[in-house]
């Protein structure tokens, strides 16, 4: 359409000047419903959420809502439980997303390229199955796996290794493992696609130059899939930051506050302690953490170009 207007015959420039401003809103018309829907259902809740974060709205106990300025945020920063939740969120993200899902996904993708077809199909099937299972089902499965009378301890017993009360002694590690189990498939798929894009000649050239497997991985493969790594890290991290169902089903953030990441803390404050306003403020802070991560990864991706 834009091209068509530009190639209009020159002799009638006046008309063009007059119609252009009138035409532009007309051209927007087909998009209007979409825009309205977006503003209503995407922008609306976000704006409402931002508003609530500055109020003392409660689920029960108070009939009206007051504007309280930055009180919710100062309260959060001064709260030891909130700081604990931030630290645990970072640990959880670092451990399960960046170290776990990302590295394991890459390793699986690399190994599967060399594997025979049946092995590849089988491994791929199993890993993707973990991803297909709904979050809450995965949560209960892994709860059954990690709990004191669960599968893991039965296996350890059978191997004559000391059993552990995983969900009690190191719950953050248990939920991190759970998240790795669930999310690795995504990384694996992204990396499989990326590795398939590397031209055969380059790998062969490196081989001819005498580069071993590890050197090839470090100097050829990784730089070539750098953009995929960036995309994958960003998607993984953002998804992991907001994991709630998995942790809630496995530990409810406990015992004590030992696995209480920000989303769990937020739910606890907003719905169990009825402090909707404060919970929303925490949600905004969580958004901020996510934004920080995305900025870092976006930078990483841009440098290459």
């Amino acid at each position: 359409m834009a091209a068509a207007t530009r190639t209009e015959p020159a002799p009638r420039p006046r008309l063009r000047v007059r119609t252009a401003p009138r035409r532009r809103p007309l051209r927007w018309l087909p998009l209007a419903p979409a825009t309205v829907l977006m503003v209503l259902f995407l922008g609306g809740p976000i704006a409402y959420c931002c508003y609530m974060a500055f109020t003392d709205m409660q689920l029960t106990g108070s009939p009206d809502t007051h504007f309280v300025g930055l009180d919710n945020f100062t309260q959060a920063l001064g709260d030891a439980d909130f700081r604990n939740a931030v630290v645990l969120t970072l640990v959880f993200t670092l451990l399960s997303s960046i170290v776990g899902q990302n590295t394991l996904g890459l390793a699986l993708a690399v190994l599967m390229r060399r594997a025979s077809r049946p092995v590849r199909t089988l491994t791929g099937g199993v890993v993707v199955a973990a991803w297909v299972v709904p979050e809450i089902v995965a949560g209960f499965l892994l709860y059954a796996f990690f709990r004191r009378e669960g599968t893991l301890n039965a296996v350890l017993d059978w191997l004559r290794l000391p059993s552990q009360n995983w969900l009690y002694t190191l719950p953050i590690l248990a939920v991190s493992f759970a998240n790795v189990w669930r999310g690795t498939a995504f990384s694996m798929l992204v990396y499989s696609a990326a590795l398939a894009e590397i031209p055969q000649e380059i790998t062969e050239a490196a081989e001819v130059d005498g580069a071993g497997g590890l050197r090839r991985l470090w100097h050829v493969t990784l730089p070539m899939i750098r953009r995929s790594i960036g995309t994958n890290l960003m998607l993984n991290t953002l998804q992991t930051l907001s994991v709630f169902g998995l942790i809630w089903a496995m530990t409810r953030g406990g015992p004590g506050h030992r696995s209480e990441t920000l989303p769990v803390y937020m739910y606890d404050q907003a719905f169990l302690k009825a402090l909707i306003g404060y919970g929303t403020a925490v949600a905004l802070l969580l958004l901020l953490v996510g934004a920080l991560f995305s900025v870092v990864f976006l930078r990483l991706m841009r440098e290459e170009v």
Partner: protein
Amino acid sequence: MRPTAPLILAAALVATAGLAGCGGSDDDPDTVKVVYNRSTDNAIRFKDRLLEDVKKQFEKAHPGKKIKLIPIQAADNDYAAKVQQMMRSSKTAPDLVYEDTFRISSDIAAGYLRPLDGYLKSWDSWGQFAPTAKAAGRGEDGRTYGVPDGTDTRGLWFNKQIFARAGLPADWRPKNWDEVLDAARTVKEKVPGVTPINVFTGKAGGETSVMQGLEMLLYGTGQDPLYDPRARKWRAGGAGLRDALGFVRTVYAEKLGPDVSDALNPNANTAVANEWLPDGKLAIALDGSWLGQHWLDTGGHPWPRWSTTLGQAPMPTQHGQPPGRVSMSGGWAWAITAKSDKPDLAWKFIETLQSRDNAVRWDVVNAQIAVRQDVAADRRYRTAMPGIAFFTGLVRYTHYRPATPDYPQVSAALAEAMEAVTTGDSTPAEAADSYGGKLKEIAPGAVLKSR
């Protein structure tokens, strides 16, 4: 590009129309929506069955009118959050809700409930209710918002067979906390494989932990240890709270209680009633008067010999100081929501629920302590359950929780303090201090210095 535009437009229009359709309420003026909590134990459905029965009675007596029962099967905290969310909007608000009386003040303050005084004035049965029960449904404005259907008391249940093996008496009557702990230690030593004592604890258990666990201890340490009703102020963590938390710490540090991860499970109360006590795995349970409901023939886990196997003892005060024993009482009430558009019909359903006959049946199957004189005098009630005389006798010593809108938040803070000492993350003194700090955030300007 152009040809697709009408398509998109049409799709968007359909979508908006659909969404608008979802928003429209399907409210039938002749249907009363009743929300109640269904037991998380799938074998226990006596409440559901009774309500179905009352629903039939009501629909027969009021032709054309309908009752829609909406059970919510969830742990208590989640039930409350769900109901509060429903009551926020007139699109989702039910007409009648079943509420724990400790949340009523809070929901009254939030404007979710409707005063019932107009109906109560002309209701004959209201005169039968005990004054304390009437107070349970009263808001700070002096109006009544809930009709209680029973109350409860709390004490110690103990397994006489395990006690016999441990060489403890069958008519056990501990005089102070130390004697309770000593009995538990004896069981641990003499009867291995049995959990000596259960004290509910932790956030997941919610009010169960706080009321059956901590408050049963706390109210045995002195006068008004939690809230000063005259000054209308909360007490920050003092010696009483530290000692009560110390008791919890001792139970879990000396491994006198269940495994900590079991104790912190949100369904611990179901496990005590359905597994640990009937299977003879638990010697002493600090628990409520209603436990027998689980083991009746009509209950989920019939256990005919429970009344001879289990004994009951009052929970003693800390050092045996007068009056020597302590109990806590709560209960649930029926309330009409503020956003209900057919309160009259909803009230009629409360009247049907609280007909003398239904009230007796309710207290019997629910193992409640009667709050109505006519029910308490009923032969069916008095002979319903062994032990009912014992728990009714505790009413003289019982305490009620502070009926303030911020109590649920204070309760949550207490549960956190309990969980911290149970896991060993904090000492009792640290947990009490941290509770004091939270109290200042919950009720600014309404906190007394600790004693």
